[in-house]
């Protein structure tokens, strides 16, 4: 186990370096932050641009910039944002918990919803409940998240004036964004749980579990579920990773000061330091999640050896 962790740690370093290198390089091909800074009405000359590039350090050769970034990272110094010069670590420090919390709550809600529903659909395959769950889950998918979000806002914030339409604050502010995301996640998860369960429900050990006189919920939630948990864990892991990096739309609609918004704004402004930091943090989290998933495999199914 220890050896495995060390190995994975080294691999993680490789991943972080590879991705930051890739991203830093690629993003520099798509636009110049100096030009972006003049957006909004400034007339600029080549001199102005050169001056600002020098101030930002983007006039240096790419590899120098990159190695500066790496050096900074070793001391946990991600530099300053090109937009306004705030410490990147401050921005990240605020955004990461915001996103994590939201992602976590949404995931938890979605899992708590989708497992029972999925199992219900699987055990009543072909019956009305199954059909209803399946069709309902599709509705969550066919309309984009902003659509759903806007509808919720119209209903709960404007019509009933129950929940704040946006912003991060108390528990109340989590309800709509988490619910919107959970609905979309659940749409997929329910069907995934259902399918995975169908694959195991016919196994002999499920029958044996029943022969023991176990309650149906024990049979389903303990014996069957654990046996089909591998694809579910995999997918939940993927989803969670996806949530961390990809909930821009939800974050924007609910004006959530998270990592997605930060990344989006950084891309729009070609704010390299912020972007590099976001990517670093994100890749560390992803590597971490995937590591946990791989460890979970071994715990869930003893036949899989963690290598």
């Amino acid at each position: 186990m220890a050896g495995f962790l060390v190995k994975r740690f080294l691999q993680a370093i490789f991943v972080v370096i590879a991705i930051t290198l890739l991203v830093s390089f690629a993003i520099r091909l798509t636009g110049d932050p100096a030009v972006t800074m003049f957006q909004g009405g400034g007339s600029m000359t080549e001199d102005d641009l050169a001056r600002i590039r020098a101030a930002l350090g983007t006039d240096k050769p790419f590899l120098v910039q990159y190695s500066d970034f790496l050096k900074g990272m070793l001391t946990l110094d991600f530099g300053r944002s090109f937009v306004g010069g705030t410490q990147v670590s401050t921005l990240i420090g605020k955004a990461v918990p915001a996103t994590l919390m939201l992602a976590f709550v949404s995931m938890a809600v979605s899992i708590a919803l989708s497992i029972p529903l999925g199992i219900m659909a699987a055990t009543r395959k072909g019956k009305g409940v199954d059909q209803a769950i399946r069709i309902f889950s599709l509705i969550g998918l066919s309309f984009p998240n902003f659509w759903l979000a806007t509808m919720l806002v119209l209903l709960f914030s404007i019509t009933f004036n129950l929940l704040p339409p946006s912003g991060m604050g108390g528990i109340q502010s989590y309800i709509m964004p988490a619910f919107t995301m959970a609905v979309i996640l659940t749409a997929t998860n329910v069907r995934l749980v259902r399918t995975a369960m169908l694959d195991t429900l016919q196994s002999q050990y499920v029958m044996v579990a029943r022969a023991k006189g176990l309650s149906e919920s024990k049979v389903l939630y303990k014996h069957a579920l654990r046996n089909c948990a591998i694809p579910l864990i995999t997918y939940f892991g993927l989803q969670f990773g996806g949530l961390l990096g990809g909930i821009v739309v939800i974050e924007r609609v609910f004006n959530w000061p998270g990592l997605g918004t930060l990344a989006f704004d950084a891309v729009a402004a070609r704010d390299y330091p912020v972007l590099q930091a976001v990517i670093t943090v994100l890749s560390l989290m992803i590597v971490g999640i995937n590591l946990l998933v791989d460890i979970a495999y071994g715990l869930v199914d003893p036949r899989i050896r963690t290598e």
Partner: protein
Amino acid sequence: EGKLTLSSSQDPGSWDPIDTFLVAWAAVSTNIFEGLTYRGPDMELVPGLAESWEELDEGKRIRFKLRQNVSFHNGEPFNAEAVKYTFDRLLGEEGAKGPQRSNYVAVESVEVIDDYTVDMKLSTPDPVLLTKLAGYGAMIVPPKYIEEKGEDFFNLNPVGTGPFKFVSYEPKVGIKLEAFQDYWGGAPKLSELEYRFITEPATAVAELQAGRVDIVIPPIIPIGMIPVIDADPNLEVVSVPGPTVDALRFNTRDGITADPKVRKAIIMAVDRKTIVDSILAGQGAEIATFQSALSFGHDEELAPLPYDPEASKKLLKEAGVEPGESLQIDIRGNDATMNEVAQVVASYLQMVGLNATIKPYETNVLLNDIIPQGKTGAMFQQKWGGWTFDYDNTAYSMYHSGEKWNPYEKDETLDKLLESQRPLTDRAERERILKEIGAYVADRALELPLYNTNAIYGVSKRVNNFIAPPDNRLKLDDVTVE
């Protein structure tokens, strides 16, 4: 008394006046900082921190008499030193890091004459300078504060002389201000101001509808949502003509649009009035040149080319353009209004036998790469804010050869005209030349001028005394709430 909450579409990241060009900065900072001059919602230039000024040395030196008994929020007095410090900083090392400096390059140095008198020495006369002193980079900053606390601290904890003083700032979330009781113009009527950064139009409107935001600052409310606000008994739409203009510029170098006849034909093929009336729901005005009606250099007399599809077809025929010829329109992908407008333009062009395709780009890519490199289609979107409300600001960048936004056109006559008006301090003469430029450009049909859009504010009816400024620079000291 009372608290006013505003939604602003962007977080400028830093509150330092020299760091940014964003209107979102000005929407907040106009309440914190002040310049030597001030331009209110009526667009008239009036004294600000300077009580008066006079031009000396044929416009190469301006002498300011400063207002007395003014202090910064931290108690530091405002005086000539502060002015000098401000401009030294702007033009020195610190200013070099930001974009604002480029606006003030005409300033050579600032000399302190006495505590409340300063001289600004210019390298060349700059007719727009006084206007520029009312905005952005020329905001007067507290020298001691900055020296003591450092530049980084100042970025996030701004101190100025304005009616409201800074309380707290949370990146990407919002900024809070409170009344500055010692404001020289008298304490503001509101006790608290909160700006929330909301990027999503629907969200901003929802917050307004939910009563959690009192004013939505443009540019964010989409035309399509105006009826929503109108329908709400507690809300109203306040709109004023703004500085923003939209045009579709032609590739005047290659392809069919290299021919001015074709360009004119295209302009005449598009019914801009209908576009303004329907797509913009009247929240804008047709333009003949690439400037708003408020702009210095705007020519009342100059009428846009009429909508005349028949004439257009004829011109096209004369130019030898076969029906079915295709052309591409490049636009900013995230500009929803332009998205619709471009589609309408395409359909108008269809009617005269031109097949237009639309290619959306990510804004940065379009601005950084496609336009400057001359990789556009036959037409491409140009959008300009022009906060100085002076045609020069736009025209020079747009039409002078070698400028970034002008990848195709190299016209000596135009270059000369543009250069000739720059040092003139004679307003009338300058205005004449600017009008001439406008007419020349219109005649050459360098662009398809579309419209000048209004600045649209969504305002709660509990807000009183709010006068919507065209340039987003809201000064809220007279506003009250119920």
